[in-house]
């Protein structure tokens, strides 16, 4: 019973945040609504027993990514309201709404029908109820079965950092003209 109350509270936070991201005219309000969604998802993770991911969700998403968004908004000074009344492409919004409703219907149908036909081997990597805590299981899986993928993500992060630095740097010509 408590689980269900928590589910509905967190789901309301998620959906209100998602609607806020789309409907806010000011990008700052969108970013703050995004925090609501991310916290709601973190609560769902706790409810589903993924405690480590819930902590990472709050630290990485709400703590780092949203702050990065707000930082960029403030840096660029684009925190003024966007004109939402005009539809630059005629009929695009009704078409987008139809696509979204069809998407919800299709995905929800798959979700409702899909649970009964969930295929795949149960407890292939490590069973959640096998004894060790969630974080122990996750760490073991990460450094045994998924160690190659883990190393590849480290390469990906290095590439992303190098790319960001190269993009943010001014070209040498600009430096000369700035002096």
């Amino acid at each position: 019973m408590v689980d269900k109350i928590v589910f509905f509270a967190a789901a309301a936070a998620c959906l209100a945040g998602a609607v806020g991201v789309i409907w806010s005219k000011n990008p700052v309000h969108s970013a703050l609504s995004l925090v609501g969604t991310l916290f709601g998802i973190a609560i769902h993770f706790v409810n589903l027993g993924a405690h480590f991911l819930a902590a990472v969700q709050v630290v990485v998403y709400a703590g780092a990514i949203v702050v990065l968004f707000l930082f960029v908004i403030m840096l660029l000074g684009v925190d003024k309201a966007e004109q939402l009344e005009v539809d630059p492409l005629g009929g695009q919004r009704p078409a987008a709404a139809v696509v979204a409703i069809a998407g919800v219907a299709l995905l929800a149908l798959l979700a409702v029908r899909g649970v009964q036909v969930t295929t795949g081997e149960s407890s292939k990597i490590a069973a959640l109820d096998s004894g060790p805590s969630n974080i122990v299981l996750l760490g073991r899986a990460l450094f045994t079965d998924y160690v190659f993928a883990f190393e590849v993500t480290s390469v990906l992060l290095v590439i992303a950092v190098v790319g960001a630095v190269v993009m943010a740097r001014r070209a040498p010509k600009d430096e000369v003209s700035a002096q």
Partner: protein
Amino acid sequence: MNVPEWWYLVLSAVLFSLGALGLLIRRNPLVMFMCVELMLNAVNLTFVTFSRSLNDIGGQVVVFFVLVVAAAEVTVGLGIIVSILRRKPGTTADDLSLLKG
């Protein structure tokens, strides 16, 4: 009494579609990026739900990787947006037609 799995799946379907809707109708590149984050989070919720329904840690490991890739994507994407908006302030996604030829 646990929450049935399909409640989570329907919720993540709705969240994913809201993200897709926002991506289609918004013009500000920053808000479009936030909508991509919404879609990624909806998928993460699905992975964790299936992780519980199959009683396996594998789905949670995938979510971990999605978090890492999302962080890298935001770093590079915001870098691109900053360098575009520095040159042309107030640019929307419609104005970025430089590659049209």
